[in-house]
């Protein structure tokens, strides 16, 4: 096994997912199978390869733009507005998103 149930529990905590015991068992099997396939990448020597983090950097010549062109003109624009921004909040009040109490009195 490449991954244990203990590790899966730790990853679930990092990911803020409350998995049931059943889900932990199933997840461990699934992740093990997929990670096994991912390990195939180790067959390749990539020591002299630069990582590719995005597409447009390799085609910047054809896009014909300066790097700074990704900044828009500094012109004031109407923002979304408080009411629209809060419209999908499960709980809101006085112009804010509301969450359960974090600091006890």
């Amino acid at each position, binding site marked *: 096994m490449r991954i244990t149930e203990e590790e*899966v529990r730790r990853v679930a905590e990092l990911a803020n997912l409350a998995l049931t015991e059943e889900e932990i068992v199933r997840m461990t099997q*699934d992740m093990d199978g997929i990670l*096994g396939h991912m390990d195939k990448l180790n067959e390749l020597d990539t020591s002299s390869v630069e*990582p590719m*983090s995005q597409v*447009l950097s390799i085609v910047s010549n054809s896009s014909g*733009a300066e790097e700074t062109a990704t900044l828009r003109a500094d012109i004031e624009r109407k923002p979304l507005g408080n009411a629209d921004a809060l419209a999908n909040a*499960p709980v809101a009040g006085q112009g804010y998103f509301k969450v359960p109490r974090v600091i006890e009195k």
Partner: protein
Amino acid sequence: MSATVDSIRADLLGKKISAEEIARDALKFAEAENPKTNAYLTFAPERALAHARAVDQKIAAGQDPGPLAGVPIAVKDVILTRGLRTTCASRMLENYIPPYDATAVMRIEHAGGVIIGKTNCDEFAMGSSNENSAFGPVRNPVAPDRVPGGSSGGSAAVIAQGTAVLSLGSDTGGSIRQPASFCGVTGVTPTYGRVSRYGLTAFASSLDHIGPFSRTVRDSARLLQVMAGRDEMDSTSAFAPVPDYVAALDGNIRGMKLGVPKEFFDGLASDTGDIIHAAIQRLQKLGAEIREIRLPHTPYAVGAYYIICTAEASSNLARYDGVRYTRRSETAGSLQEMYRQTRDEGFGAECKRRIMLGTYVLSAGYYDAYYLKAQKVRALVARDYAQAFEQVDAIVGPVSPFPAFKLGEKVDDPTAMYLSDIYTVTGDLAGIPCMSVPSGKTAEGLPVGLQILANHFNETAMFRVADAFERAST
């Protein structure tokens, strides 16, 4: 509906029918047919009729009603529509009403397009069968006991069913081309950055694309024409000028060099292979020069793809935490419980699996072994294509190793489902334009798509091959 963008335009300008009548008919037909496929999640009658009337008013006033005037269009439910519920096929967002439109949606409606509804898909666009929707699977209109493909299954199905003339999908690892192939329609993944991602719900940002579905190549070219081009709301959208795609559709591919990658024929089902070989022969008869090429890093692409896409997904989906996006667990007491229980209740099994994998490959001690390694392999996949395009104008091959499979047939084996993306993920990793065009049917009557790939921003070459092939097929 056998209408096209051009036929609708001719009918409108010839005063044979009004845009409002077209919209009413389209909505009525789509709503009546939907129980057969479950392809639409939401209909938008008020919005559709308002835009249709605007088109009619322009025509009455003698103004140009726009290049997509009166065309009924369906939009995948991961693309935001202001004031119109956008669920991402997830319980997490079942009541989410976006406060703004995606740029692609804005450009379509500005061009006279009439959005009639939102289409079903795999939850947050994660899947290859449309079985991961929280609102039930979509059935393939060609074979109702089979999947339509995924993740843009609904957007492919509405075209095959004739309940929309155009639709929008999104593609991260094959989610437009594979369902297009399974449903026997045309589906296009443009160059990364060609269409703004503003308003496309983020799954894997370095791989996500918006693209068209249609029944004809020309209609996809027309839709891409409207959506393509720099958008200051998406800093990764490209500045490259947008050529006239339709002007390139002259049916002539004589002398074009087409590469056939040897690696795309490993593990291919025999009936699919026969259809693809016959398609390549047809291209040769049309005057194309066929060359065998090598894309040697193809066998590593699925592994690299699933590391990168799950890593980016785990980060992008962190925002669904019970604070801003409609759903919050009702049983949670503390802040921590609110996060965990909201996510546990809101996400389906595939989303959880990908969040877990992504969190794992990015966690302390594993970054170099997985994420960095995958980015390096991605560079090698892109280099394979760059070298190939020094020799050929476009590349052709299969989209999927097999045609549409039965509902439920593959749900229990996620690794096998991931591996079936082998011929589509390489195009996304390299960021090149690629599409699926119908190329025949198996003995069982299941459609098989031919994939056509071209170099960055060379959609023109891709469309030219697809259009010539389509003319020779009909």
